[in-house]
C-alpha cells in the first residue's frame, strides 16, 4: 500500500444550535489513495455532506485532523495551503446555482486558469478548449461564449467539472453531482468522473444517497456507509452491495426499489424495529442504530459504542454482533 494522499483522522464536527449541540460528524477516519474512487453513502442527515466539506478543506473539523500527503491541512500556511486548495476541488450538487449566470463559460473558466496557471490570451483559450473536450462538451468552441442558462443541467455539470479541472486537482469531491440531472444522462456524467480517476489519477469522492449510483461509480473502489454521523461500514463495493456487513446497510439494500419488476417485488426485506431516525440532538447511547436494529442485544448494543472493526475480506464494520460472529449482518439476518 502506498501512503494515503488525503486522510481524515478521527474527524468530528459539532454545531451549536438553540436547541443544543449537534454532532454532525463523529470520529470519522478515512484514508484515500491516489486515483481511488470512493462513495460516501447515506440518508439525509447522516453527515455525508459535512464529511465531504471537511475533506475538501472547506470546513474546519471540531476534532481530529485532515491530512494531505501526511501533513495537517489546518496547520498549513501561505503557499503550502494554496497548493492544498488547488489540489482538492469540490463539485456541487446544483449546477443551476453553482455557476455564475452572468458569466459565459469562457469567463467562468478563465480566472482560475489565469490565477493558478498564468495562462492568458491564446494559451488560456487553448487550455479551455482542451478542458471542454475532456469533459465531453464538443465542439468546444461552441460552448465558450454560452451562458449557463443556454445549457442543459448535464452540460452545466460538465462545466462545473471543467472548472474544477482548471487547477489540475488531485482530489475531486463531488457532492450529489448527478442527482439533479436527468436519469437518462447520469451514467455519462459518472463515466466522466470515473475517467478522471482512471486516466488522470485524480482521487474521486462521490457523495450520494443512491446506492445504485454508488455501486456503478465505485465499481472498482470502495463505499463508506454513514448513519447519524458515523461510518458504520467501509468495504470494497461488490462485497458491500452483495453481502452487506452492517445491519443498517443490509436494511438499506433490502429496501431499495430496483428497476426490475421481478427482483424488486420478490426481494427479501429486513424489518426494522423503528421507522423514525433518532434526532441528532438526542442520540441513543451505545450503538446509534440499536433502537432500530433487528440484531441489537440488550446490555451490549445499548451501552457500548461499537468500534469500526475488521471482518474477513478487508471490510470494516461498526457492529458488535457482526464482529463477534465474524459474519456480515446480511448472513445473520438471512437476506443474502
Amino acid at each position, binding site marked *: 500500500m502506498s501512503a494515503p494522499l488525503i486522510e481524515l483522522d478521527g474527524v468530528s464536527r459539532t454545531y451549536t444550535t438553540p436547541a443544543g449541540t449537534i454532532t454532525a460528524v463523529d470520529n470519522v477516519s478515512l484514508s484515500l489513495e491516489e486515483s481511488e474512487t470512493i462513495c460516501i453513502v447515506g*440518508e*439525509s442527515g447522516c453527515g455525508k455532506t459535512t464529511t465531504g466539506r471537511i475533506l475538501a478543506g472547506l470546513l474546519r473539523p471540531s476534532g481530529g485532523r485532515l491530512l494531505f500527503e501526511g501533513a495537517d491541512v489546518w496547520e498549513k500556511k501561505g503557499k503550502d495551503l494554496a497548493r492544498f486548495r488547488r489540489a482538492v476541488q469540490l463539485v456541487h450538487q446544483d449546477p443551476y446555482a453553482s455557476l455564475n449566470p452572468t458569466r459565459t463559460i469562457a469567463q467562468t473558466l478563465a480566472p482560475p486558469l489565469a490565477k493558478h496557471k498564468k495562462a492568458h490570451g491564446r494559451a488560456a483559450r487553448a487550455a479551455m478548449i482542451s478542458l471542454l473536450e475532456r469533459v465531453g462538451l464538443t465542439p468546444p468552441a461552441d460552448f465558450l461564449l454560452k451562458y449557463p442558462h443556454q445549457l*442543459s443541467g448535464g452540460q452545466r455539470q460538465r462545466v462545473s467539472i471543467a472548472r474544477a479541472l482548471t487547477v489540475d486537482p488531485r482530489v475531486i469531491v463531488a457532492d450529489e453531482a448527478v442527482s439533479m440531472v*436527468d*436519469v*437518462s*444522462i*447520469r*451514467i*455519462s*456524467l459518472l*463515466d466522466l468522473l470515473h475517467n478522471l480517476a482512471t486516466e488522470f489519477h485524480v482521487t474521486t469522492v462521490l457523495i450520494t*444517497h443512491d*446506492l*445504485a*449510483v454508488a*455501486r*456503478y461509480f465505485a*465499481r472498482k473502489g470502495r463505499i463508506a456507509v454513514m448513519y447519524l454521523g458515523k461510518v458504520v461500514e467501509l468495504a470494497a463495493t461488490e462485497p458491500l*452491495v*452483495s453481502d452487506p456487513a452492517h445491519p443498517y446497510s443490509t*436494511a*438499506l*439494500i433490502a*429496501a*431499495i*426499489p*430496483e*428497476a*426490475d*419488476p*421481478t*427482483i*424488486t*417485488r420478490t*426481494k427479501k426485506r429486513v424489518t*426494522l424495529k423503528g*421507522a*423514525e431516525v433518532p434526532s441528532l440532538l438526542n442520540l441513543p447511547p451505545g450503538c446509534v442504530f440499536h433502537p432500530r436494529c433487528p440484531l441489537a442485544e440488550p446490555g451490549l448494543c445499548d451501552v457500548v459504542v461499537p468500534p469500526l472493526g475488521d471482518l474477513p475480506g478487508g471490510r470494516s464494520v461498526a457492529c458488535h454482533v457482526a464482529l463477534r460472529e465474524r459474519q456480515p449482518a446480511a448472513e445473520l439476518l438471512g437476506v443474502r
Partner: protein
Amino acid sequence: MPVLAVRDLSIEYRTRHGPVQAVRDVTFDLEQGETIAIIGESGSGKTTLAVGLIRLSPRSARVTKGEIRYDDGKRAFDVLSLDAERLRRFRWADCAMVFQAALSAFNPVITIWEQFLDTGRAHGMGDKHKVHDRTRELLDLVHLDPKRVLSAYPHELSGGMRQRVLIAMALLLDPRIIILDEPTTALDILTQRAIIDLLRELRSRLGFSTIFISHDLSIAAELADRMLTMYAGRIVERASVEDLFYRPRHPYSVGLMRAVPRVSGAMGSVASIPGSPPDLIRLPKGCSYYPRCPFHVDECLEQDPPLLQVDTPNHEAACIRWTAVATALGSDAEAPVAEKLA
C-alpha cells in the same frame, strides 16, 4: 369498462417563440383498479399530461384537441366539457392528485387538521365532526398517529410523514382515481420503501386506479401494471410492466432501461442516452427520436410512426424498427435490458 379513457389528447403551451406541443395525440385507457406508470425524461410531456387530466394546467396551456372520458359506472362525462363548479368537484371527489411532499404542497400557517378541514369544506363536507372522524380514519390508514399529526404544522413533520398526510388527504372524498407525481422523490430509501408499501396496501384495500408520473423506473417496477413511455409529447410505447422492462420494443424505452444502474444482480451494460430531446416548438419531420436512435434508418424520417402492435399481446411501440430492437435484445427471458445487451 375503463374508468378513464383518454383519446387523442393534445396540449400546447403558448410561448413567445410559438406553441410548444407538449402533449401530442395521447390515447390510453385506465381500467378500474389498475396502476399505470408514465415514464420519460424531463420535458417528455408526462407532467403536462398528468396535470392536464384534471385540467390543472397553467394558463399558458391549451387543450387543442381530444377527449378525457370519465366513467365510474354511475356517472360518465368528458372532463374537458365540465364547467368550473363540476370540475372542482371532479378534482377531489373523483380524481385526486398527490404532489411531491415538498412543503409547498401545504399551507404553511395552518395545522394539518385545518388543512383537512379546509379541503373537506371546500368540497361540501359541512359537518366538522364528520370531517374529523374521516380524517382520523384516514390517518390511521396511512399509519400516522392522529394525536401527534393533527395539531402539527407542516414544517414540524418529516418528509415521509408529509407524504403520508398528502396521500391521506387525497383519499378524503374516496376518489376512484389517484394521480401521483413523483411520490417518492426526495425521500430517503427506507421512507421511500414505506410509502411504496403503503400505496400498494391502500390500492388493494380501496381499489382505486392509479396513474404514476415518475422519472424513477424502480417505482414503476414496484407498482405498475402497465406502462406508457413518453417522448417529445407522444406515447411511444404501451406495454405491461414485464414487457416494458424485459421486452421493450421502442429504442427510447430501451435507452431509459439501460440508463439506470441497479444494486442487486449483474450490472450489465449500462449507458446514458446520447443527445437531448427535440425542440417541441420546431419538431423535426419523421420520428422525433431519430437523431438519438441507434436503430435509425432513412425511412424513419418519412413520417412520425404510429403505435404498431409488436410481438407480444397488448404491446405497441411507435417504431418501424421494432423487429431490429427485438433482435438486438435477443432472448425474451425475464432479464433486464442492460444484461441482455452486455
